[in-house]
């Protein structure tokens, strides 16, 4: 069971890495990050379930990851809005070009 869970988590993480590295648009990069956090969440709960004897700190870790996701999303969107407002750019390359 643990094997299945960890392989699934690894696969989600791999897709997240691919997305975060390959995508040009800010919001799509954020989706990659969220997928990576999703995998982390699954790993955390797997260990809590299998190896910690029900230590509630494992559950707490999941909640903390959730909070990180929310914070990342809120600040991320706010920054995208601010950048778009000032630079009219929504993809990373454009931002570089504008800076030069």
């Amino acid at each position, binding site marked *: 069971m643990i094997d*299945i869970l960890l392989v699934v988590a690894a696969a989600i993480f791999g897709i997240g890495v691919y997305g975060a*590295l390959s995508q040009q648009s800010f919001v799509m990069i954020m989706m990659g990050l969220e997928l990576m956090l*999703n995998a982390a969440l699954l790993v955390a709960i797997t260990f809590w379930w299998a190896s910690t004897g029900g230590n509630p700190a494992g*559950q707490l870790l999941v909640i903390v990851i959730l909070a990180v*996701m929310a914070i990342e999303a809120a600040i991320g969107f706010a920054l995208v809005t601010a950048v778009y407002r000032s630079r009219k750019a929504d993809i990373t390359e454009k931002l570089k070009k504008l800076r030069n």
Partner: protein
Amino acid sequence: MNPGPLSYFLVSAFGIGAVVSGWLVFRTDSMLRAAYWLMVSFVAVGAMLIVLDAQFLGLILILMMSGEMTIMAIFMILFMMNPAGLNPMTMVHQHRTSIIAGVGSFIVLAFVGVVAEFPDRPVPAGNATVALGEELLGRSMLVFESAGVALLAVMIGAIAIAAKQGRFGDAFDGSEEPSIDVETGDRS
């Protein structure tokens, strides 16, 4: 720890669902679909959590992500050109590197996961939500408090960053900087 065949089946099914929908996020042209494929991925992971006796956390994950992904969809449609993907498009860079990095991290992590041995100390029966609540108000009070304050900072920060310009006056007058006067600081 002795999960039955049903648990195996469900975990595998949801696991495949989570991976496939996660992959589809980057395969679709429609921003709406991308956001909601990501939500499906989260919901599938939430369902796996439920199978793993973390019913509360699984459901809370689904609850959180449904709200967050709709906001994600709204913002993606807001900022992406051609949000519905009516013209097929690929907006990727360093594609080969990304694929190698993605596959590489999968292989490494999966290898570690399969090979490594973990102590076998399963969750005892009992209400995990109560345990979590006690943890939150006991040992981990500090985490709880700081998360609360951090979220307040996020609320204020996000609004301040996102809505800084153009709130006062319409496009025809030209917008003016908001007056951040001293009394704000005093009040809050």
